[in-house]
């Protein structure tokens, strides 16, 4: 079962803070410990910033995963921006088109248990990340 808990609109710097704080709160309620809360919130902060920087606006959807076998959190970060032309490149450390560290995408992958990237040129980007309770 997948239950949507909240949706945060992301259009500016303040929304990045709102998104990561919301995710943190939900992660805590779902039962994640302090370190996982920090990992999940940090990952969302990276993805939300990318929405603001590269796509101007988008949204972050926070959902609870409640399967018998796997419980946890799923966050979908979505925008209608320009899309990512080469996903593999974007996932590699140090690659950036924004003059920053190029650490957000590969870093998010390391912090989460799963990460799916969908993107189409001119249509947008949808990144789904998951973390499971141990």
């Amino acid at each position: 079962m997948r239950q949507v808990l909240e949706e945060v609109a992301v259009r500016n710097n303040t929304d990045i803070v709102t998104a990561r704080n919301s995710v943190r709160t939900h992660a805590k309620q779902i039962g994640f410990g302090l370190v996982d809360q920090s990992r999940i919130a940090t990952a969302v902060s990276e993805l939300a910033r990318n929405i603001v920087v590269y796509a101007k606006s988008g949204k972050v959807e926070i959902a609870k995963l409640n399967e018998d076998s796997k419980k946890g959190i799923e966050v979908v970060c979505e925008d209608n921006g320009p899309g990512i032309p080469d996903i593999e490149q974007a996932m590699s450390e140090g690659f950036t088109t924004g003059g920053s560290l190029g650490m957000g995408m590969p870093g998010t992958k390391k912090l989460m248990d799963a990460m799916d990237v969908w993107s189409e040129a001119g249509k947008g980007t949808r990144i789904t990340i998951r973390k499971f309770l141990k």
Partner: protein
Amino acid sequence: MERIPVLKISDFLIVTIQVALDDESALKLQEDILEEIAKTKAKGLLIDITAVDIVDSFMGRMIRDIARMARLMGPPTIVVGMQPAVAITLVELGLKMTGVSCALNLEKGLLMLKEMVEAKEREERTLEAEETEGYEAGA
């Protein structure tokens, strides 16, 4: 936009980050701190992040850069109070915090900063050693 106060206590600047900083406020803080260093002629800088529970690559980089920038002006910097969860996340994220000195809390940080200021004159040799190890930018 949040505005974080930069306090001068004896010879040191003390910055306590108590709210969740957005990117713009973080950059403003960076500027404020460096201007205060120039204005107050502080000998050392202490940044207290005890209350900060999320440090992403942007914020982590900002903290690191402040230390590097301050060093180019003179004063050494110490970061105190990083929460265990934050430290774990930063390392897993892969952010290199080379050149940033850290201490457990304000008290230990102040002591350490005092020693760093005193030891700064002997810095030459340390830097030389770090350089041969392929030590990274600016701090």
